[in-house]
């Protein structure tokens, strides 16, 4: 096993750990962290596998994809955090409840 593959495997493991956190942890801030970790995992896999090329340079296309991906991730995170704060202001809880409250 070469090092790109190790990092690619790390990538999918991060994805899964994030997914696990997203499902199991209830606090919204934690869920947002989980989504970020999942994203990092995917980026890692995308780039690491691009390093399999025979030439001396890694594939630049995944790099470009990941750079834009990181910027999108931070903007989505900012939106999620703002939404969370507003939700906490309105409902007093940073946890999504399953039992629907009657908000008439």
């Amino acid at each position: 096993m070469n090092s790109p593959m190790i990092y690619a495997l790390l990538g999918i493991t991060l994805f899964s750990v994030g997914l696990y956190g997203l499902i199991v942890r209830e606090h919204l801030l934690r869920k947002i962290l989980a989504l970020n970790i999942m994203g990092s995992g995917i980026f890692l896999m995308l780039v690491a596998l691009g390093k399999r090329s025979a030439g001396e340079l890694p594939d630049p296309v995944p790099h470009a994809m990941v750079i834009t991906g990181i910027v999108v991730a931070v903007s989505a995170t900012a939106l999620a955090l703002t939404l969370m704060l507003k939700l906490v202001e309105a409902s007093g809880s940073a946890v999504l409840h399953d039992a629907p409250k009657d908000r008439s």
Partner: protein
Amino acid sequence: MEALDFALGLFDILLVFLVLSLAWLVMSSEDLFRAIVLFVAFGLLMALVWVRLEAPDIALAEAAIGAGLTGALMMAALDRLSSVKPIQKVAASAQRKQLSLSSKVLPLIALVLIVLGLGYALLSLPEIADGLTPNVKENMAQSGVKNPVTAVLLNFRGYDTLLEMVVLLLALLSVWSLGGERKLSPRSTNPILGSLCRVLVPVLILVSCYLLWVGADAPGGAFQAGSVLGAAGVLLLLSGWHVEQKYLLWPLRFILILGSGVFIIMAAVLLLIQGGLLTYPVAQAGWMILLLESAATLSIGATLAALFLGGVPKSRVDQ
């Protein structure tokens, strides 16, 4: 040479182990503050990983955004969270106790299965694959820049980048739509922050300009430059930067849409002249890309700083 390879391999394994444990700790630690600190550390290590993967462009972006800005956003959110609702931590831990064993174990099994399945899928990929490297190489001469990543970002897949700029703007629009107005914080009384700002902000702006300029030939470019600019903006906001209300209306909005606006206009103009969306004339590609990148840098920087503020900015001086 072999010793170096061995050392690097060892380093790789250590790094993988560290990144993984940090990610796990971010998810499992009880304290949210701790989790965020660990997440910032995770981001920094990720930057190292990118270096190891010969992706300096990403490493720059990750260091500025993944570790810096995201961390700052999270910290600020946590801060506001506790000021809004101090009891919520209790509520969260009470919730946690109700989690039965099966609701924790089942996802864990699923996690292992996903890792195994995806791992198997990855390992059955061919050992060597060129991806699009040859295509990029072949067309670099016509791209107008020398850095292949910039060529992909702004030329070969420039249309993606146009849309990504829109995503960035959309996130801000949504935040503004949600957050209402937010006054700029009063001038910081913290002398260290103030002096840090006075030194750091000009440096950051310089770095940003450098990254923007060098992006054509070497690692760097609009996204990295914009992130650094955004970081400077965040610092200014923290230290209580005073901006007059009149600059916060039209001029700010103008800067915010500058990146996507110039992109769209450029696309339309090129469509008319060249008959294709974002089809640059080879001779002019260089400066056109620089123009796009400059506009994008300003917008990204302004947007990131505005996202950090979390609402429509309003001057703290009441008119």
